[in-house]
Structure formats: C-alpha cells, structure tokens
C-alpha cells in the first residue's frame, strides 16, 4: 500500500474548502427559505469540513515526523537531526503550517457548534451555519490558494536533509504557545458567529450572549495562557532578562485579550440590565477582527518584529477580510438599530454597572494606546515619509497609569451593589481598605522603596486584595445554613456552589493582582550587571556571589554546546546555593548561535544568568550578563491562579444545566 500523504493532505484541504463553501451557501439558502433538509446538509458539511481540515493537519504532521523532504514546507522547517517533538511542532514553525493549524482549530470549533446545533434557537441555526462556514472558508481559502503547506519541493531531486527549524523555536514553551494562542483566537470566532447570526436573523435578544458565555470564557482563558506562555518563552529564550517588550507581535496577541476582557465584563451588564447591546456587538466583532488584524500585522511585514518568524506577502488579504467584516457589521447594526436600543439607563453613577463601564473604557484606552504604538511606524511613514517607531518608554508611559486605574476599579467593583449604592454603604466598605492601603504606601516610602508608580502599584494591589478578601469573608458569612455543619470550609463550598461565577471571577482578579506585583517588582527593581570571570574568580550581585567553576563543551545531534558552570553562593555566609549552567549553542544545520539562559528561581527573586561570550585570547575567561528580577515568579503564579479561576467558571455545574422554563400545570398567581 503506497499512500502519498502529501497528495492526501492536499486533497483533504481542498475538500474542506469545498465543504465550507457548501456550508456557507446552504446556510444562507436555508436561512432564507427555512428549508430544514438543506440546513441539515449544511450542518453535516460543517462537521465534514472540520474532520477534513484536522485530517490534513495530521497528514502534514506525518510528513514532518517521517522527514519527507519532497514537501517544500517540511524541507524548509525541519531536518533529520531534530528531536521528534520539534519535528511535529515545526508544523507551526512557518506561515503555511501556522495557518493550517489555525484552520484546523477553527474548523474544530465550528464542528463543535454544528454538532450541538439542534439545541440552539431555531432562528439562529441556519445563519449560524452560514457565518461559521464563512470564517472557515476565508482561512481555508488562504491556506489552500496562498499558503498551501502541501507543495512539492521545486528541485530536480529530493534533498537528503532539510533546513531545520529556527533554533529559537526549538523550545518546549514555543511548542505550546502558538496552539494555545490559536485556540483563543479561533474560540473567539464562535461568539462572533452567534452575534452575526443574531444580527442576520433579527433575533437580537440576549440569547447569543447566554449561549456563548462559556465559549467567551474559554477563548479568554486560552488567550491568557497563550500570551503568558509567549512571555515566558521570551523570558527564558531571548536572554534579555525580560518577558515583555511591547513588540508588535506581542501586542498583536495582547490587543484581542484586552477587548475580550472588556467584553466579558460588559456582557454581565447586558445580562442584567439589557443595556450595552450595541457596545457588546462591536466589542466581540472587534475582538474577532483583532485576531485577524494580528495575523495581518505579523504576516504582512508592514511592521518589524523580533518575533516575525513567518513573514510573507499575504497580509493584505486579511485586511480585505477585515474590511468585509466591518462593512457587514456596520450595515447590520444600522438595520437592527431599533432592537439594539437600550431598555434602560444607568440609574446611578455609584453602581457596579457604571464601574464595569468605566473599566471597559480603560481597557479600550489601553487597546487604543497599544494600537497607536503599533501603527505609528506606518502612520508616520504615510504622513512624513519617514518610518518612526515608538518603543517601551511610550507604551509604559501611557499604559502603566491606565493599568493602575484598571486595578483600582477592579477593587471598587466588588464593593458596589448592582443598580445603586448609597454613600453610607460605600463609606463603610471603602474606609478600612483605603486607610490600610495608605498605611502600606507610607510604610513603603519609609522602607526606602523608590518611584511613584511602584509605590502606587503595591498599595493599590493591597487595597484590591483587601476588598477581595473582604468580599469572600462577607460572602461566607452570608452562607449561614441551618445544617449541623456550619464551619467556614462548608460555607466556602456553599458560596462557590451558589455563586461560582462571581467568586471565581474574584479569584481571577486575585491572580491579576499577584501577577501585577510580580510585574511591578521585576520591572521597577531589576538589577542588571555585565562582567567577565576567569576560572575561580567571583562576582557579587544582590545577596549572591557567583563563581566561575568551569567551561565545558558537549555535542548533541542537533547542536554543539559550550556551557559555563557557575557556582551560586550566599554572599554573607558563602554557603553554596546551587549551580547555574548558561550555554551558547551552535546549531549545525542552521549555522546559528543561540544563548540559553540559566535561572535560579525562588519566590523572592530570579537570578538570571546569560553566557555572553568567551574571551578570544585566553579561552578561560567568560563574559556574563546577570539580571536579578525580584518577585518574578509571582507573575507566573498569578497566571496559574487566573487559569484556575477560568476553569472554575467553565465547569460551573449550575451553568452547565439547562435552565429552560417549564410552564406549571396550574396557572401561577404571580
């Protein structure tokens, strides 16, 4: 049996394109004619498109694992010496495979919706099939006709070995980061599809919000993890001691996160007050569009980035697609403007809904500031003819105060009731946390902590922490039961059972606080040193003394490594705390040298050491770069807490149950 996986993958990709087109046309037809048989055909087409897309991805994976260099893409991004895991993850090492992975995830999300189609409101079904297939069709078109990963190599013979994957991408966190991010991006397409289906069908009640609540949280969770893993990869791989540089590619993944966060909060207002319908539609359209815009940004080559591993000239197709999305949405929102009008106004400025709205505005301000920074080189070139870039100082100067304002309102929100709060209640709720936070600020100044923003950040975090803990305490107190077991753990479990979404939300906020403390400390109090050491020589930094013990070499299949053995000693007691081994790697096939950092992590600080080079004359001297990043690990702990809170919301058993109303047998007196 001689199966050609290149041809098979290509055929499956083409099949998924035909199926997505069929699904789109049939969805529109059954939406207009209400023909249930064609609707069922459209549903089946969506399922089949998902299966075909996924199968074609597996075909590409097979080609990579078998080092089939007759395939252009496999030859370009892998070689025989690479470990199997990186051969597989090389699928998303370049543009073609990344887009296929995106398509597969998108088709998988669409297929999940198609599988559950019978449960959705009758008016939405056909349009839902049409919209999810239109999204799939766009991306599959790009893959099939512009970035097809199943092209044969254009050479008279099959090369014996491939080029190999960029060494920077041969890292476990880079293996996970793109799929997580793409899951977030593609999961956002489902709330977008429901929203568009609601607009197309005219059923603009809160149904689409209710039905996509879990999808939105899933997308947000994956985006959070994807962005964080990207930051962690940059931290351990790029060797500059930081995790975020406001690079255009980083910003491209961060912008949809900002708008999705705003959306998650503003839908709560719509769910309760029937307000912000128009706002929410545009927020989800914006979030989805930003995933496409991010791809345009990173694939078009219009902005320069250290992360642009897959720059091609297909970016303008994404811009065209964005134009279509915005035109269709604008037309539909104008047509449906009567049904989108708010049913009530915000009753009081001192209410949770107004705080949510304020927080939304802050998140969008951060988004616009980031977008402005990203687009500035293009705008400046168009206006002045000179490409000017803005870098970290601009983003920090604009976004740090906005972030701190967001943290403040994150603490205020839980203390204010929905609808309206009285001044007396507000004073009662705020006074103690405010005074204690002020005390912390004074204490920090007294302890010698420098800088306005770090002190503000720590005291704000303390303020919000108190409000969250207070909220849990009051919530648990309110869970008095008549049962025998009235212990605090029992009350806590009752609280999480009855109000899972609200308190898991507080847990996510707690994660944000912990991460903020980590970010503030590691940025504001970072210590950076460069020095050279001979064997036996030592250098002191912070509470550590570093002593160069040896320089060694090792040869692996894929690369040759030169690494230093650096003893870490306690500066005061001279007790040994560990051994760090920063490396320089030379990848044979790629002919590239990379620096592999070595980090001593602790809850207090990260000792981050980079082997910068060797003294060419003596060969026994090595140059090092060392960073001391205080509280760095708390950033990653914060992300874990956020992820845990997200999982709690996704698997809320009360929300998982159907809540359809059943008419009572006797007429109600209410």
């Amino acid at each position, binding site marked *: 049996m001689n199966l050609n996986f290149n041809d098979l993958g290509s055929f499956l990709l083409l099949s998924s394109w035909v199926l997505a087109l069929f699904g789109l046309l049939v969805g529109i037809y059954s939406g207009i004619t209400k023909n249930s048989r064609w609707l069922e055909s459209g549903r089946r087409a969506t399922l*089949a498109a998902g299966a075909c897309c996924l199968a074609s991805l597996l075909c590409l994976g097979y080609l990579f694992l078998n080092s089939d260099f007759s395939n252009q893409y496999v030859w370009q991004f892998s070689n025989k010496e690479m470990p199997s895991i990186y051969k597989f993850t090389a699928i998303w090492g370049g543009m073609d495979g990344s887009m296929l992975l995106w398509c597969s995830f998108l088709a998988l999300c669409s297929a999940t919706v198609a599988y559950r189609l019978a449960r959705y409101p009758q008016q939405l079904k056909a349009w839902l099939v049409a919209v999810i297939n239109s999204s799939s069709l766009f991306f599959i078109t790009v893959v099939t006709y512009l970035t097809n990963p199943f092209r044969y190599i254009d050479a008279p013979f099959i090369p014996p070995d491939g080029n190999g994957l960029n060494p920077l991408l041969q890292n476990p966190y880079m293996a996970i980061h793109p799929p997580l991010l793409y899951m977030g991006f593609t999961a956002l397409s489902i709330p977008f599809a429901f929203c568009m289906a609601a607009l197309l069908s005219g059923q603009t009640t809160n149904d689409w919000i209710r039905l996509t609540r879990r999808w939105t949280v899933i997308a947000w969770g994956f985006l959070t993890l994807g962005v964080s893993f990207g930051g962690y990869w940059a931290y351990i791989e790029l060797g500059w001691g930081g995790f975020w540089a406001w690079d255009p590619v980083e910003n491209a993944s961060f912008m949809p996160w900002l708008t999705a966060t705003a959306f998650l909060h503003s839908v709560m207002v719509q769910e309760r007050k029937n307000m912000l319908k128009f706002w929410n539609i545009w927020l989800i359209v914006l979030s989805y569009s930003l995933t496409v815009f991010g791809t345009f940004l990173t694939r078009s080559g219009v902005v320069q980035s250290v992360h642009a591993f897959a720059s091609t000239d297909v970016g303008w197709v994404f811009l065209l697609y964005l134009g279509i999305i915005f035109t269709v949405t604008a037309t539909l929102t104008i047509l449906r403007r009567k049904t989108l009008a708010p049913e009530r106004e915000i009753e009081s400025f001192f209410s949770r809904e107004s705080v949510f709205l304020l927080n939304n505005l802050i998140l969008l301000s951060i988004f616009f500031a980031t977008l402005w920074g990203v687009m500035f080189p293009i705008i400046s070139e168009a206006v002045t003819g000179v490409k000017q870039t803005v870098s970290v100082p601009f983003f920090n100067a604009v976004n740090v105060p906005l972030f701190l304002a967001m943290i403040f309102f994150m603490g205020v929100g839980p203390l204010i009731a929905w609808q309206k709060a009285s001044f007396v209640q507000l004073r009662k709720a705020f006074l103690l946390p405010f005074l204690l936070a002020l005390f912390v600020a004074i204490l920090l100044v007294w302890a010698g902590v420098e800088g306005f923003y770090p002190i503000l950040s720590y005291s704000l975090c303390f303020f919000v922490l108190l409000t969250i803990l207070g909220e849990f305490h009051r919530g648990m107190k309110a869970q008095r039961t008549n049962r025998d077991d009235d212990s605090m753990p029992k009350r806590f479990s009752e609280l999480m059972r009855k109000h899972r979404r609200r308190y898991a939300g507080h847990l996510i906020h707690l994660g944000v606080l912990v991460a903020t403390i980590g970010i503030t400390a590691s940025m504001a109090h970072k210590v950076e040193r460069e020095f050279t050491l001979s064997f036996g020589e030592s250098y002191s930094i912070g509470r550590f003394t570093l002593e160069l013990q040896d320089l060694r070499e090792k040869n692996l299949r894929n690369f040759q490594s030169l690494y230093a053995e650096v003893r870490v000693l306690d500066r005061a007691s001279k007790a040994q705390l560990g051994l760090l081994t920063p490396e320089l790697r030379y990848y044979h096939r790629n002919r590239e040298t990379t620096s592999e950092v070595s980090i001593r992590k602790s809850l207090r600080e990260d000792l981050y050491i980079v082997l910068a080079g060797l003294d060419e004359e003596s060969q026994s001297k090595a140059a090092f770069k060392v960073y001391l990043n205080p509280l760095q690990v708390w950033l990653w702990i914060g992300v874990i807490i956020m992820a845990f809170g997200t999982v709690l919301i996704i698997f809320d058993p009360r929300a998982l149950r159907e809540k359809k109303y059943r008419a009572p047998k006797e007429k109600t007196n209410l």
Partner: protein
Amino acid sequence: MTTSLIAVLITIGIIWWLLAPHFNREDHQSRMLKGTPVEVSRLDDERERYLRMLNDLELDYKTGKLGDDEYQILRQELVRDLGKILADLDRNLQTES
C-alpha cells in the same frame, strides 16, 4: 493509485452523507427547526435575567452592600416585574401547546 482510490472513496462518502437528509425519511423538519418560538425565547431570557438580578440583589444585601430600605424597594420592583414576565410566559406556552 492508493491515494486516488482513498480520495474517490472519501468524496463518495461525503456526497452521500451531505445528501442523505434529502433521501431518507427522518423528520429533519421537527429536529432541525424545532426550538423555542421567538416570543417564548425572549420571555425566557427575561425570566432568567430577573432571576439573576434577584440573586445578585440578595447577595448584595447579605454582604452589606445595600441598606434594608433600598433592598426592600428594589426587591419589590424586581418581584413585580418578574411576576408579569412569568404570567406572559405561561400564557405563551399555553397558547403554543
């Protein structure tokens, strides 16, 4: 040869699967177009919204964010509106059945 054969089989399988709803006797009309009518769906949506608001109000009161008077006034408003919605919902469901 094998690849072409598999491609042909997949194509036939997909075409058959897509067109099957047009040839079998299964009642797709009731399965695919069943669902809650628009008005019932809207009222059910409203019912859920009011229940959520009542739940929030209760928790806000118990956690000291609202005074007794404000709580009573807001609660009465919500219960009254919810009552109307449930009555409308019952009427619509009875008409439908």
